[in-house]
């Protein structure tokens, strides 16, 4: 079988499984977020925590709950890292330095999982389990809750109540994430991922040397790292590490875990619209089609670039195998890279810094698009819905009609919030990169300072990854400095929570409206023309914003 055919079959298998679970899993999630009954264990939890699960929150109350929960999450994670040496399962780890602990705490609470530390050298088993992995669940559930709140804003009329954050959070964790994680973790162990509580142990090797091998509760963290589009590896080498990604089948399963919730949430969206009468299932499909179009283009481009093998060192080697594992090869590595940067995951099974100029440029572009192809759990759906509303607005300008999405007017207040949402991450990326490049110490942090465009790409990638809550890296950048820990920490913090503020305010504003009845002149937002407009809007807005920066980095390197 030729390599290309094998690669196509590999991707087809992935898409077939996603297609098979799309309807049942999407509808299941819709039931989770719309059901009125609470499980007994959930009821007990609400009682202990002083929560009235049947009281809907105003958008600002919903937002306050999101922010309070996230703030305490950051604090708890910071304290855990600073005191890990005194706690159980310390396996000899020292406390994490303050600037790195701050960076890591924000990183995991904000669903980014940027890692300026090396897991096997810095974190105790307890910090990994009870700190980092817990936030992998919770930050994912927070993202899904905010997306559902926006959907309710589109559905509801003449109210400002968006649901109850605590209920959405608890259901997301207990009904969706935890059951899949428990089964998935055991499947990973069956595939070879380790799961124990042992510390590092030394072995005599076959060839007569010695080697220290790490242990740890890896599978239980690995599964939610992907399912919750988090991405923070237990080990430094992330899913390229054979104890995290032992075989190609396991790696393909991990890609499925990364994509399954963001993809199926578009069905959840369509089903919630259809059940309430606010729209149809085809509205959800249209959103998926826009995501899938860009994903497919990006996957084809990245795979082609890696197989073509651009770059002088790559050509001397004969193929783009630097930073890639033999068992995965170029195609599975390109597929993983597209999935991890098209979502907010940032896990890697190969190292993007050594990708060809255009291959690395495309995975960078996936993040700069705002991670909407299909995006992080929840954040992908709300990001794409904001872009859909922006497309409606731009379309309305062209034909001089009042822009409406699902009958809700995109008026001055709404478009201001949409504009703020769309501008937040580009501002963080470009300002952060600009400041970093102006500092004299930055070239010293680059692994590839000898190739100027590539060194610049390392810094641009770091801020793109932070502000968009991805967490993958052009890992040659030595980011464990006070400047990068603090600066990327701020980018992650604002890049996560400012958009959430704007989305929830937008949801509140939409929920207040009485939708206008559809007429013959209403622009249909569930047809191919609309999909094309959303794709064009996404590409043009990002292209205009980032073209100069991309021209200085990957384009300059690839074309020279």
């Amino acid at each position: 079988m030729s390599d290309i055919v094998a690669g196509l079959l590999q991707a087809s298998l992935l898409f077939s499984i996603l297609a098979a679970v799309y309807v049942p899993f999407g509808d299941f999630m819709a039931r989770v977020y719309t059901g009125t009954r609470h499980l007994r264990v959930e009821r007990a939890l609400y009682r202990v925590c002083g929560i009235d699960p049947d009281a809907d929150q105003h958008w600002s109350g919903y937002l306050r709950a999101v922010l309070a929960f996230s703030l305490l999450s950051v604090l708890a994670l910071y304290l855990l890292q600073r005191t890990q040496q005194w706690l159980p399962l310390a396996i000899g780890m020292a406390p994490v330095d303050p600037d790195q602990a701050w960076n890591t705490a924000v990183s995991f609470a904000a669903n980014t999982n940027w890692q300026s530390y090396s897991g096997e050298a810095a974190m105790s088993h307890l910090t990994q389990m009870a700190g980092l992995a817990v936030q992998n669940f919770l930050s994912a559930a927070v993202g899904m809750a905010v997306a559902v709140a926006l959907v309710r804003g589109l559905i509801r009329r003449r109210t400002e109540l968006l649901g109850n954050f605590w209920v959405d959070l608890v259901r997301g964790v207990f009904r969706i994430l935890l059951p899949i994680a428990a089964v998935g973790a055991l499947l990973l162990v069956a595939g070879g991922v380790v799961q124990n509580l042992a510390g590092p142990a030394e072995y005599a090797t076959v060839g007569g040397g010695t080697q220290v091998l790490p242990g740890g509760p890896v599978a239980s963290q690995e599964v939610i790292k992907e399912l919750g589009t988090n991405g923070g590896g237990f080990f430094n080498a992330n899913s390229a590490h054979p104890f995290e990604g032992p075989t190609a089948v396991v790696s393909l399963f991990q890609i499925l875990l990364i994509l399954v919730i963001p993809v199926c949430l578009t069905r959840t969206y369509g089903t919630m619209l259809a059940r309430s009468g606010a729209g149809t299932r085809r509205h959800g499909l249209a959103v998926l089609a826009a995501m899938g179009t860009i994903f497919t283009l990006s996957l084809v481009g990245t795979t082609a670039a890696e197989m073509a093998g651009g770059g002088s060192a790559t050509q001397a080697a004969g193929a783009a195998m630097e930073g890639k594992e033999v068992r995965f090869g170029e195609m599975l590595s390109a597929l993983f890279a597209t999935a991890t940067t098209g979502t907010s995951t940032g896990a890697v099974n190969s190292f993007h810094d050594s990708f060809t100029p255009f291959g690395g440029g495309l995975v960078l572009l996936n993040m700069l698009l705002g991670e909407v192809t299909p995006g992080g759990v929840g954040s992908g759906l709300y990001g794409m819905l904001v872009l859909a509303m922006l497309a409606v607005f731009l379309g309305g300008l062209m034909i001089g009609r009042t822009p409406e999405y699902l009958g809700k007017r995109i008026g001055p207040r709404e478009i201001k919030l949409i504009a703020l949402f769309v501008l937040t991450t580009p501002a963080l990326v470009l300002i952060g990169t600009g400041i970093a490049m102006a500092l004299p110490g930055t070239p010293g942090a680059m692994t590839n300072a000898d190739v100027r465009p590539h060194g610049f790409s390392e810094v641009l990638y770091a801020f793109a990854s932070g502000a968009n809550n991805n967490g993958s890296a052009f890992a040659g950048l030595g980011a464990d400095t006070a400047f990068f820990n603090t600066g990327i920490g701020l980018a992650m913090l604002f890049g996560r929570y400012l958009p959430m503020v704007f989305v929830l305010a937008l949801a509140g504003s939409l929920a207040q409206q009485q939708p206008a009845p559809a007429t013959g002149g209403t622009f249909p937002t569930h047809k191919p023309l609309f999909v094309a407009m959303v794709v064009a809007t996404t590409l043009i807005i990002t292209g205009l914003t980032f073209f100069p920066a991309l021209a200085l980095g990957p384009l300059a390197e690839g074309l020279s």
Partner: protein
Amino acid sequence: MPARIPARLRPYSAAARVLLLMTAVLGLAYPLAVTGAAQVLFPARADGSLIERDGAAAGSSLIGQDFDGEEWFHPRPSAAGDDGYDGAASSASNLGPNSEELLAQVRERRSAVAAQNGVAESAVPPDAVTASGSGLDPHISPAYAAVQTARVADARGLPPGRVRDLVAAHTDGRALGFIGEPAVNVVTLNRDLAGLG
């Protein structure tokens, strides 16, 4: 109870309690339950797929090891730790596609591999001159194994056909015929090679 807490602070009180309960369930109960189940269902894999040589544990079949000398199949170059294949310091080189440093490394490795094995430089496959993502890649490509077969057979005084058969036995094809890439496990190959005497 909530009535006694000022309205402004109420979300924090709920948040603190939710966070504490979630940490107990997701941070302790869940990983410990998975560990218990994994240790019962798949104990060998959960503990790192350890291999034995002469009755003693000799590392993991999943984690690459360094092999030096004529009588061994050599693994890929590694960026894990200062000397490579450091199991406590997984890492890629992160050198870019146009890096001068990487270019120099590739050229040096190519001529070294060609000289060691007595083959033309053009016969040296890409995985032999590039470092893996983890620095712990246990595999080499079938092409790189083929390049080394004659040298290893010669050094061990074994018929080349016998070594070739052993390589074939340690070669994993693509799963289902299309997932991943064909790969030869250097660690288990060398272990069984040593067993041949």
